């Protein structure tokens, strides 16, 4: 099905989609389109963020929106993440639907109070009398010697906070569909985009559609091992799967798409079949989302896994600047391949 397909390159897409007469666009175009359609169809939606009206257009994801909808609805803001998040919250409680864009996820600790102590809790602590329809777009991903403060990912932190939802689309199709679903959700949703996926391409329908929060997807079916891959690692996992196929190892790739709520069932059913698990993440190891997934499995039964699990993720160090150190720091398809081989061989 074209909407579940992960394309590893533009050529592959062109071949497939053009034949079927389907439109293929990039991830950043999908987000742009989703936002434009949302604003077009709903007066309550507005976009705020540092530089959203800037010529770069946040990796192209807000390009032209200020011109089209005006700077009041596509609002550049002061460099003041905490109050600005609180302002988004306040507006959300009285009928607006703000989309808050962070060019880098690393700036979220500045507004952790408003996210964790306020956005996440307002519905609960008012007994449901208020709620906070807010989408926080946070961009993660490796830069270019960006170092410790400019390439982090905090999805594991947000997953721990009741009241937040956490979404990590990997494909253009999901980017649009999950964005529109997040905007409809009525709750604060951390919408996490990996900058290395922005040029990924795929089938994206022109009309508005929703991909429901909390539903994962099988990107590739397999028998021997399950790779739960998050965000950009879905692409690495697909590459790894292709390599492993040549070895006769059949890999199932699961893309949870949303982390909170998590599609535990899908993961469990995959792992119950393959009985081996590798998690490919784009964040530090300790306390990562993978730990939660493994724990959910272990809560279900001690009999599911027949091999140790592996996490392919960042080491527990801040992010270094030097290209040599970055190379050592970032995991890729080869690391996934190695991890899979380890646990398939070992058992």
């Amino acid at each position: 099905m074209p909407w579940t397909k992960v394309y590893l390159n533009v050529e592959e897409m062109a071949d497939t989609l053009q034949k079927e007469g389907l439109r293929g666009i990039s991830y950043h175009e999908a987000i742009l389109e989703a936002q434009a359609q949302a604003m077009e169809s709903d007066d309550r939606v507005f976009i705020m963020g540092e530089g959203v009206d800037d010529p770069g257009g946040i990796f192209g994801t807000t390009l032209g929106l200020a011109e089209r909808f005006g700077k009041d609805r596509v609002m550049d803001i002061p460099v003041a993440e905490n109050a600005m998040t609180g302002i988004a919250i306040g507006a959300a409680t009285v009928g607006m639907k703000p989309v808050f864009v962070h060019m880098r996820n690393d700036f979220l600790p500045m507004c952790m109070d408003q996210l964790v102590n306020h956005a996440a809790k307002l519905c609960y602590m008012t007994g449901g009398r208020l709620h906070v329809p807010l989408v926080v777009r946070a961009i993660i991903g490796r830069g270019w010697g960006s170092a410790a403060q400019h390439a982090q990912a905090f999805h594991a932190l947000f997953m721990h906070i009741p009241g937040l939802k956490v979404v990590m689309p990997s494909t253009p199709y999901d980017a649009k569909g999950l964005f529109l679903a997040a905007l409809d959700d009525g709750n604060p949703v951390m919408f996490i985009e990996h900058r290395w996926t922005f040029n990924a391409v795929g089938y994206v329908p022109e009309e508005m559609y929703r991909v429901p929060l909390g539903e994962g997807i099988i990107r590739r079916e397999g028998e021997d091992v399950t790779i739960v891959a998050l965000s950009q690692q879905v692409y690495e996992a697909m590459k790894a799967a292709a390599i492993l196929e040549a070895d006769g190892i059949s890999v199932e790739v699961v893309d949870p798409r949303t982390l909170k709520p998590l599609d535990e069932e899908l993961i469990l059913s995959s792992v119950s079949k393959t009985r081996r698990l590798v998690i490919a993440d784009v964040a530090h190891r300790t306390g990562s989302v993978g730990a939660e997934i493994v724990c959910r499995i272990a809560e279900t039964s001690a009999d599911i896994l027949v091999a140790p699990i592996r996490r392919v993720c960042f080491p527990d160090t801040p992010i270094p600047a030097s290209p040599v150190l970055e190379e050592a720091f970032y995991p890729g398809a080869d690391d996934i391949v190695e991890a899979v081989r380890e646990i398939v061989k070992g058992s």
Partner: protein
Amino acid sequence: MPEATALDIPADIAIRLSRTMMLIRQFEEKIVDVYGVQDMKTPVHLCIGQEAIAAGVCENLRTDDYILTTHRGHGHCLAKGASPRELYAEFYGRRQGCARGKGGSMHPVAPECGVLGASAIVGGSLPHAVGAALAIKMQGGDRVAVAFFGDGATDEGVFHESLNFAALKTLPVIFVCENNFYAVSSPILARRCNDNIVLHAQPYDMPNEQVDSMDVLKVYHAAHRAVARARAGEGPTLLECRTYRWKGHVGPEADHEKGCRPKEELEDWMQRCPVEYLNQLLLAEGIITEEALAESTREIERELDDALEFARQCPFPDPREVLENVYYTGA
């Protein structure tokens, strides 16, 4: 008690101000009365002594205006029209509480009359008021939003960030700082080099007033000017309302009993009780009689007794409700 100045507002407004302040005072004193039994299991931050601010500001507001408040928010909610029954029920953790027992004393909410909640994080609700004002501007109309907060909140960066954005976008928001000169037991001069909160408006070219808030008329007038500007699209105002809390930071005792501050300081301020002050003025001007005042007191007492009774008879939430309201699930 200082010399009563002449009453410079219509009698009906003055009488409402008096009634609101008395309601707040008696509401809080009733908590003092019952708190010792320890069945109101929520940390209460009483605003006795500070009533004139809530009353004087909210007298200028309509039901469709918004307020945001803090841990010390009972008075603001009452002045804006929140139901004493639902407030007490909330403090008793009951299902008919304004937040269904989820929020307690620090998180009153009453959207039906524009109370958009309270934060127990110092400074936390300030930007929410600015956000509400931004929404007003986007949605149109002449509604306003008010942020109540303490002097402690002005230590936090979020206060300054909020002021900046409100000024930048000329938003209809009024920042009402209740400067009671303490944050918990920390005196203001241990936290900043002067106690003039009002100065913080200046970098933003924001209108501002420092208001003696023992005199509710002064608060009323200052708020009147600020609200008028906001409704006219002229943007935000910072009001520094100088006041004093008679009780400790939390709970029904006074601070000098814990050694947090001198007893004399409290006594001096108590000489200037804002409720007494207005009532004396109304009596002196012949606007109310002693009897009317006494009847007013009794009437409020009856209303609050009824509210307390209601609250205590409300059922507790079902324990399973702990899992509800984590997420909004549709209207």
